[in-house]
């Protein structure tokens, strides 16, 4: 079975072909990140305009590069939410109409399910059941994954998502937008113990997070002594990063213990963070657990994870009717197997 996957939920246009026999055949994406820099954040209308311009050429190039003919496609998967409604609609309209015209099934995929399953595109794969930490620009979730579509949300951020906290703090530090990766890069040269920052919610028994206080703590430090942005910028970045990541890891370790699970899938933009990966690997080893990650390229939004999730659902006969409505908000725990 050959599945075409299409992702347009935010500021990345991603397309991919996944084959049941050969695995991932090829994938391509176009990122709009630079387009939105001059606006200081993703502008939904501009994102949507970019998707409708880029999607069709990208799909065409994908088929050419993969040396596949459109007649070989057996099904189409597209992201139907959560995300920016206008952006989602571009992918949904194209994907659903293409499938209709080819008389093949189409399936609507939950964006976070895509992230959750991304590690299955790698050689090292987890087995069900497992725990998942989804950390991106819009989400921070700890999920118990019992099977495809059987997702129980154990914890989430009550305010800013982890990636959002990176981006907002990076902006406070003058690192531009989206500054998460730049902040992480800067942190490599810093001392994570230089500044004492709170480890929010660690005193609480639950698996929820709160990151907006951390950003405020950094703002106070800078306000009190603007000099640190010159003398100790890397230290500040490292201390902030450590505070976020210590918290993420502590809650995951706790959730692993509470559920008795030994495998942790980590996915979403922030899972590209090397400090997170190093710390997790060593700390999980100490408790006899193991982490699974997507390759760096598939940490952020991409079509490959959507094609793969689509394959799993098409394989068991699931398909969407001709309605291609999308859901800007859509809980992962509303899904079924």
């Amino acid at each position, binding site marked *: 079975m050959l599945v075409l996957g299409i992702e347009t939920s935010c500021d990345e246009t991603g397309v991919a072909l996944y084959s049941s026999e050969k695995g991932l055949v090829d994938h391509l994406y176009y990122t709009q990140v630079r387009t939105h820099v*001059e*606006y*200081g954040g993703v*502008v939904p*209308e*501009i994102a*949507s*305009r970019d998707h*409708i*311009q880029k*999607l*069709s*050429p990208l*799909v*065409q190039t994908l088929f050419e590069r993969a040396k596949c003919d*459109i007649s070989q496609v057996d099904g189409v998967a597209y992201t139907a939410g959560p995300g920016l*409604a*206008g952006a989602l*609609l*571009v*992918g*949904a*309209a*194209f*994907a*659903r*109409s*293409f*499938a*209709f*015209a*080819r*008389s093949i099934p189409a399936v609507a995929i939950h964006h976070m399910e895509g992230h959750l399953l991304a590690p299955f595109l790698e050689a090292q794969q987890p087995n069900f059941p497992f725990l998942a930490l989804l950390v991106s620009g819009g989400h921070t979730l700890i999920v118990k994954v019992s099977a495809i579509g059987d997702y129980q949300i154990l914890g989430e951020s009550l305010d800013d998502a982890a990636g959002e906290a990176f981006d907002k703090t990076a902006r406070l530090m003058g690192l531009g937008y989206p500054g998460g990766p730049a902040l992480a890069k800067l942190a490599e040269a810093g001392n994570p113990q230089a500044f004492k920052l709170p480890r929010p919610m660690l005193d609480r028994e639950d698996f929820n997070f709160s990151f907006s206080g951390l950003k405020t703590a950094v703002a106070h430090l800078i306000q009190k002594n603007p000099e640190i942005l010159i003398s100790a910028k890397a230290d500040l970045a490292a201390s902030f990063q450590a505070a976020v990541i210590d918290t993420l890891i502590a809650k995951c370790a706790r959730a692993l213990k509470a559920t008795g699970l030994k495998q942790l899938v980590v996915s979403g933009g922030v899972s590209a963070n090397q400090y997170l990966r190093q710390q997790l690997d060593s700390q999980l080893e100490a408790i006899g657990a193991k982490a699974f990650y997507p390759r760096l390229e598939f940490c952020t939004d991409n079509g490959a994870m959507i094609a793969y999730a689509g394959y799993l659902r098409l394989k068991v006969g699931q398909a969407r009717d*001709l*309605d*291609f*409505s*999308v859901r800007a908000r859509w809980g992962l725990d509303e899904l079924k197997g």
Partner: protein
Amino acid sequence: MILLSLDTSTETCSAALWHNDQIDVISELAPKRHTHLILPMIQTLLEKHQLNIADCDAIAFGEGPGSFTGLRIAAGVAQGLAFAHTLPLIPVSTLAALALAAKIQQPQLDYFVPALDARMQEVYFAIYTFEKNRPLAIVPDSLAAPAKARVSIAENTPAAWLGIGQAYAVYPDLSQGLEPAALMLDAYPNAKEIALLAKEAFMEGHVVNSTEALPKYLRNDVAKKIV
């Protein structure tokens, strides 16, 4: 020739099929329900005529102006259908479609001035006249404040003209002091006229492929830059 057309640029959702020298149309006033309706409409038309997408010679869609999201739905659907069978696409102006609908009803008039509400106190408008059944834009599809559009209408309609579209109801300013032969307020762009216009365009070879068929927004200043 066999030509499929669709339009989702306003509250109306419509699809039409030109087949055996006749036009068949399905149309519904259905705000925000385009994603539910458009493909089933196309399917119903094709099944009724025992055709497949692959049988079509071309696909036309309302390129705009209109609701941004609606224009992208139409372009996305048209691109997806066309890409599936490497079919040519024909983007058609929604204002020209409105003008043609009015010309069919009032063939004796010379000037047709379609206008759609562009929100933010502006209208999309154009002034068309017809040479046989082919629309000629005296004033091209434009975005303007109603008062400015009114000046343009006054200057460019030397004979009786017809105002078409809800914008005349929303912005009385648009026709204040002018004397249109009539106003057709309850008019929306429709796949029917889009098909009729596309048919002519197709004969003249005005087609694009699925990577070139894009919405015509007219309003391009949609966000403030921080720098």
